[in-house]
């Protein structure tokens, strides 16, 4: 229903997400400083939804860097992410009308192991000192190593992950952080594609429904008549 409305051109409101608003500003800063933008789409394989969300945001970031003619560097850990990243970045450069600026080495396979990947990226950060570091995707124990090094290199940092155990480190070391579902919402927010906008609105509708169902459940439990109701939520 929401997708239909979006396709019909009906305005669908989405509140501002500060971290996303900051992306364009951060790329602008990199342009002014003449230094590159570093984008890491997480360190997980393409079969992780966080990686797909990261790749989707990469498309928008690449479009902005192409428009500003700012160098972009995307180190990846898996060959499939490399292929997907190259596809997305190439399309973004074409969409921005700057296909001649696209270089396959923008997205680069770095290393297949978590900490060798981190060591290489950290070395890059200290040597090249990118003006902006964007981390969007699935991160694990390397999150603080990356974010702290970026911080020490003086870069503006924007992070987004749905891993609750890594979010505190990004919040501590980055300027802006997209938490949990904000990462998934980012793709819809940036693209304004009717299908994605509709999906996001549908998710919001489901959240309200879940809240109502929880409140009904609690009331029924308090009146001691929730046995059947609670069984609906049990795993079969």
């Amino acid at each position, binding site marked *: 229903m929401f997708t239909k409305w979006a396709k019909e051109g009906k305005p669908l409101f989405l509140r501002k997400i500060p971290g996303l608003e900051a992306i364009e500003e951060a790329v602008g800063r990199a342009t002014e400083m003449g230094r590159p933008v570093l984008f890491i789409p997480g360190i997980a394989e393409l079969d992780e939804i966080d990686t797909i969300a990261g790749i989707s945001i990469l498309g928008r970031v690449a479009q902005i860097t192409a428009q500003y003619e700012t160098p972009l560097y995307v180190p990846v850990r898996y060959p499939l992410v490399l292929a997907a990243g190259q596809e997305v970045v190439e399309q973004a450069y074409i969409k921005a009308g700057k296909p001649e600026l696209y270089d396959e080495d923008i997205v680069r396979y770095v290393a297949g192991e978590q900490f060798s990947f981190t060591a290489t990226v950290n*070395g890059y950060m*200290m040597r090249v000192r990118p003006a902006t570091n964007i981390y969007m995707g699935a991160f694990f124990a390397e999150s603080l190593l990356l974010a702290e090094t970026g911080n020490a290199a003086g870069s503006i940092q924007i992070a987004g992950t749905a891993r609750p155990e890594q979010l505190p480190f990004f919040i501590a070391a980055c300027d802006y952080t997209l938490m949990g579902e904000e990462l998934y919402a980012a793709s819809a927010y940036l693209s304004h594609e009717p299908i994605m906008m509709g999906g996001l609105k549908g998710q919001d509708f489901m959240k309200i429904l879940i809240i109502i169902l929880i409140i009904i459940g609690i009331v029924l439990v308090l009146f001691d008549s929730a046995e059947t109701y609670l069984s609906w939520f049990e795993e079969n």
Partner: protein
Amino acid sequence: MSGIEILQIWIIAFFTLALFSFLYKDNPFYRLAENIFAGLTTGYQVSLIWDTVIIQKLWDPMMGGQWWLFLPGLLGLMMFSRFFPKISWMSRVPLAVVMGITAGIFLTTQLHGFVLPQMQATMNTFVTAKGFADYFLASLIAVGVISTMIYFYFSHEHVGVLGVTAKLGIWFIMISFGAHFGYTVMGRVSLLIGRTQFLIEDWIGTFSYIF
């Protein structure tokens, strides 16, 4: 302790110290360790994937009669089309398959693995509650779950009642992050202790054999 064992310990100690040297600043020792580390792990993974995936999960079962495995094999081969510009579009097929399957699986696992159990657990805390303290904690959990969900509601500005509830949600989120932070830092400190123990006990321990 044999000469080979001492050599191994010295190599490990050298790379440990070379990587630690990054704490001071970027230097040639760190660069050497970084490049060897990246090269070694990449080489190791290529051989690992060849053996555990190509041979054990694809070739051997196919030779054993599971001929339908040629389909994922074919999808894998299509990735190599990226080396040939005229047919490089073919590599988009396996990418689309992986991304589509991921999104589909994610939807069901999230619903069954997180959403329904979270809803049930939130309501069940009231079922098992006995006395004021239990009901207070159960209410706290319910308020935490609902206000956190409100924080992730994107269809309305966080103003008025919604704003207050979202602010409450962010408090719950931050308290949870604080606990995660402390827990993980403790884990990292134990890793540092492990490395330090290796340097003090194993590496410095070899000095008596050499000097």
